[in-house]
């Protein structure tokens, strides 16, 4: 009997969404997605309250929100330590290194044929596992986290960038040759712009990897701040609302990170069909 209100809310939201989905305009699409998200949160809150689920197992969204508001100072230090110092630095270094390597091996088909299969292979490996080694080498502070992130993001970006540099058509390269363009000019004016959609694909994939690497590396040792550190200690104190608040921060940071990269992509590759299509 206690499940009745939950089922009622669920059925009501579902009926509303089914009705809204028939219009298929932009506004209703957004509304449908938002209603679904809100319904999940409401059902979660109701389930926790009705069945009196202890916060140790699953805290209610309202408790998580309260914990988030209370601990903004802690969450901000953790955010700076893990996301800005660890993930972002590592991501930038890794991306630059991968782009430089891709351009360097671009002139040698031999190296490309050798490196690409290995790069593809390494991209599928559980690289997070090197976290303990790098923590041992670079110490507990953010440098070791950045190092983990560098290794994690390097190969996906490399593989995409190499594919991107190869994406120009022979006709276009011939045109550059007939204009007697030197290597640098043809790289700068033709091949780098043509590689951008591929590069941004790699950059977008690796935003999540960067956050994962930075947080997981903290489980192997960290100073007394950072999201991974806070998650493991808060779990130890069974302060689950704080853990979920950290997860919320990670989710927001991850979406923002991805969103910013996607925005830059839109500005840089405005000429690409996939972007033009979106403008409609």
């Amino acid at each position, binding site marked *: 009997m206690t499940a009745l209100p939950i089922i009622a809310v669920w059925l009501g939201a579902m009926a509303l969404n089914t009705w809204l989905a028939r219009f298929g305009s932009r506004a209703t699409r957004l509304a449908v997605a938002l209603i679904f998200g809100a319904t999940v949160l409401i059902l979660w809150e109701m389930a926790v309250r009705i069945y009196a689920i202890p916060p140790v*197992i*699953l805290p209610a969204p309202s408790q998580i929100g309260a914990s988030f508001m209370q601990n903004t100072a802690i969450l901000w230090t953790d955010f700076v330590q893990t996301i800005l110092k660890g993930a972002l630095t590592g991501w930038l270094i890794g991306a630059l290194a991968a782009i430089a390597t891709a351009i360097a091996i671009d002139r040698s088909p031999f190296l490309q044929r050798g490196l690409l299969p290995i790069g593809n292979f390494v991209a599928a490996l559980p690289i*997070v596992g090197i976290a303990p080694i790098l923590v041992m080498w670079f110490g507990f502070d953010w440098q070791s986290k950045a190092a983990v992130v560098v290794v994690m993001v390097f190969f996906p970006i490399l593989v995409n960038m190499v594919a991107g540099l190869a994406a120009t058509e022979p006709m276009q390269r011939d045109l550059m040759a007939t204009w007697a363009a030197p290597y640098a000019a043809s790289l700068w004016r033709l091949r780098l712009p043509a590689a951008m959609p591929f590069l941004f694909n790699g950059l977008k994939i690796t935003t999540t990897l960067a956050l994962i690497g930075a947080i*997981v590396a903290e489980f192997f040792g960290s100073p007394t701040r950072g999201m991974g550190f806070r998650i493991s200690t808060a779990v130890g104190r069974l302060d689950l609302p704080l*853990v979920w608040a950290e997860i919320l921060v990670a989710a927001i940071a991850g979406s923002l990170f991805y969103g910013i990269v996607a925005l830059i992509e839109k500005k840089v590759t405005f000429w690409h069909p996939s972007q033009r299509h979106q403008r409609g």
Partner: protein
Amino acid sequence: MNRLLPILTVLLAIVAIWYGAAVWMNAPWVRDQAARAETVLTTGDLVRQTLTLDRPVLPAPHQVAAGLWDGIAGQKITSKRSLVWHGWITLSATLAGFAIGTAAGILLAVGIVHNRAMDQSVMPWAVASQTVPILAIAPMVIVVFASAGVTGLLPKAIIAAWLSFFPVLVGMVKGLRTPDGMQLDLMRSWSASRAQVFWRLRLPSSLPYLFASLKVAIAAALVGTIVGELPAGATAGLGARLLSGSYYGQTVQIWSALFAAAILAAALVALIGAAERLTLRRMGLAR
């Protein structure tokens, strides 16, 4: 075959760099020991000692290979020092999670393709959830399940399932939507029912997408399981091997566990690749 030579060259270069790095990174320790013992080291001695340390900063490739060989073949399979035993624990959780995640992903994708309300409700969140570092909370999930009394294979499998779920969902939705208007119209002109359209057109044409996402999903499931084995207290699995190695400074143990995980990942991806080739060839879709 003309790819073999470049690959081998690059691999050789990597091994050479590795040896160089091992000598360079282990040298300070060896020099320090020699200075304490007040002996003078020749270059040959230095190199030999850096490559045979018990707990090197960076173990040399042959030390890792020896550790790996000892872990796989040198121990009884039931022994807690055997990498086969740890690998099996990781593998079983990975496969269980992969199966759950794939099944859930395919089912939800079928629902999304056939129901507009579901599509508009779930898809934006499924795509957005890709940007959330879910893996980072894996150890927490384990601890929470443990406090609820659930331990062993299931919590790890849930993390693996969660991670393999989204690639399958996104790939499968894309795949089930590949049939173009012309093909759907043809089915309609044959007055095919929805089920027939699904079984004879949508499902077969989605298979290439499904296999591509299965490869991503199984790699993700393995990573999820390994990270799920990291929290203190876990004693079995490749992740636990990594963690205990890092606690006790057993670098050779860390590297062999790492390589065992890499071999496992490569084998799983290759297995799905083989299944893909076999299926697509039978269907006449092989390129």
